[in-house]
């Protein structure tokens, strides 16, 4: 029933069309949940294999990279447990790319709703993040099974590292995605820019190679910049979670710290800061541009 009269009289007059953005979404979790279900359903309409595609695509990708990078270029001989090394990084980049491409199109994609009914518009990019998460879970399962077969014995800190990797990548990608989702309403070129970013993503993080190969080539300050990018951080955290606890990766008498750069604490704190800042900035940009969404669509 409608808010009863006494309560209604107590409510102040408010300006419609203003929301607290991401902070308000908790109230909308019922709708958020339904939007995620809808997006998953729509994605796989008319598809026989459905969700199985989320296994097939990364599996093919992994095979190609493993043969090309690991065997032809010989990286597999230099890095023990290269399959796990490679895949643990790829999963994070796939997560990043999926969030970014989904969020960027999320407002355009929901144009009929955005233009006709007022809802906190952040609902759409955020539901895209959940959809990306649903897609990354099978990949993580495959990763864990593969790692277990190769003798993965994680400690509690490794698990924490894996969760932290997803969080950092998720915040960073949502931040960029919010900004691009808003740009996309005004200029469809945003989608091309995002494709460019996605192409670069896998190379600016140590997915194929190891961080010290970058340190050997780049000047120190530039290497620090490289390290603080949340993608490199997420991938390295993922290595820490899934690759390092694999049997034979850490030589006898060594510890995981020996495989990480000396300044790892500092750059990871900075990387976290960059991820949080990108989320805040993305929200601010989104908020400033959303006022004209309805008339631009």
């Amino acid at each position, binding site marked *: 029933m409608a808010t009863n009269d006494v309560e209604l009289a107590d409510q102040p007059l*408010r*300006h*419609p*069309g203003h929301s607290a953005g991401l902070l308000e979404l908790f109230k909308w979790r*019922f709708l958020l949940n339904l939007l995620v279900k809808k997006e998953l359903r729509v994605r796989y*309409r008319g598809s026989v294999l459905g969700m199985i595609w989320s296994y097939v695509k990364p599996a093919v990708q992994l095979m190609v990279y493993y043969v090309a990078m690991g065997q032809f270029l010989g990286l597999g001989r230099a890095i023990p447990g290269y399959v796990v090394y490679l895949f643990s990084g790829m999963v994070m980049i796939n997560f990043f790319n999926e969030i970014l491409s989904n969020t960027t199109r999320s407002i355009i994609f929901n144009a009929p709703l955005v233009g006709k*009914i*007022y809802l906190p518009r952040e609902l759409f990019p955020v539901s895209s993040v959940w959809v990306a998460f649903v897609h990354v879970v099978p990949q993580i399962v495959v990763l864990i099974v593969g790692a277990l077969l190769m003798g993965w014995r994680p400690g509690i800190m490794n698990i924490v590292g894996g969760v932290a990797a997803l969080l950092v990548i998720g915040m960073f990608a949502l931040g960029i995605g919010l900004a691009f989702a808003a740009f996309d309403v005004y200029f469809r070129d945003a989608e091309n820019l995002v494709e460019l970013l996605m192409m670069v993503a896998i190379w600016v993080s140590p997915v194929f190679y190891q961080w010290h190969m970058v340190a050997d080539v780049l000047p120190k300050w530039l290497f620090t910049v490289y390290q603080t990018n949340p993608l490199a951080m997420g991938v390295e955290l993922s290595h820490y979670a899934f690759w390092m606890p694999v049997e034979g990766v850490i030589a006898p008498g060594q510890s995981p710290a020996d495989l990480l750069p000396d300044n790892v604490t500092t750059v990871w704190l900075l990387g976290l800061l960059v991820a949080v800042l990108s989320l805040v900035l993305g929200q601010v940009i989104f908020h400033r541009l959303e006022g004209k969404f*309805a008339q631009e669509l």
Partner: protein
Amino acid sequence: MTASPDGLVMAELTNVVKRFDLRHTRSIKEYIVWWATGRRGQLSDEFNALDNVSFTVTQGESIALLGFNGSGKSTTLKLVSGVMLPDSGSVRVRGRIAGLIEVGAGMHPDLTGRENVYLNGAILGLSEQQVNERFDSIVAFSGIEKFIDTEVKFYSSGMYMRLAFAVAVHTDPDLFLVDEVLAVGDEPFQRKCIARMKQLRAAGQTLMVVSHDLELIKDICERGIVLEHGRVVLDAPIAEAVDFLRSTMSD
């Protein structure tokens, strides 16, 4: 319940101006060329969709926005709902606002009728529990019980509209906005829709309606606001407002 002039204010528009620009360009390249060549010429045309509009809606009132195409009726509803923001002036509202701004905007063809009821209910601001409680009543109103677990893409357009309408009239907001769609479907269902609107009206539901069906509007609303090129030209009891509009039509 009759509306009193000193009733609780549900919506208040004060000197509202809404400008639209009809942008000619759509790509960054064109924009940069335009910018780099000294920003000559207009990239866009501007016009005022609403120009200094002020009025107040109090609880229990049913207001019709009248006017010809392009007079700013729908824009006014979009400002009240929050879909659009005013360029100057202020719009303030109280309570939960929902409506039939466009029946079926939240419907998705790949979901079943049941799933769409939940999705639409949530979009219009209902909680899960509220949808659960009203589900049977919504389905009964729509009259498509047999097809509720069928994907909506297999519905006829009439069934589609009936379901969407049924959800909307069960949302029970504090301020109900209706744009053009007072009635959908075949004749019997249309009668049902109109009966439901009158029932809401009699129960003291605050309504803001946009429609070109003047006879119907006379039946449902008590006050009419006539808009012309984005300006309020008359704010009067509905019969007077309808007569005024008809007289300008014959000019």
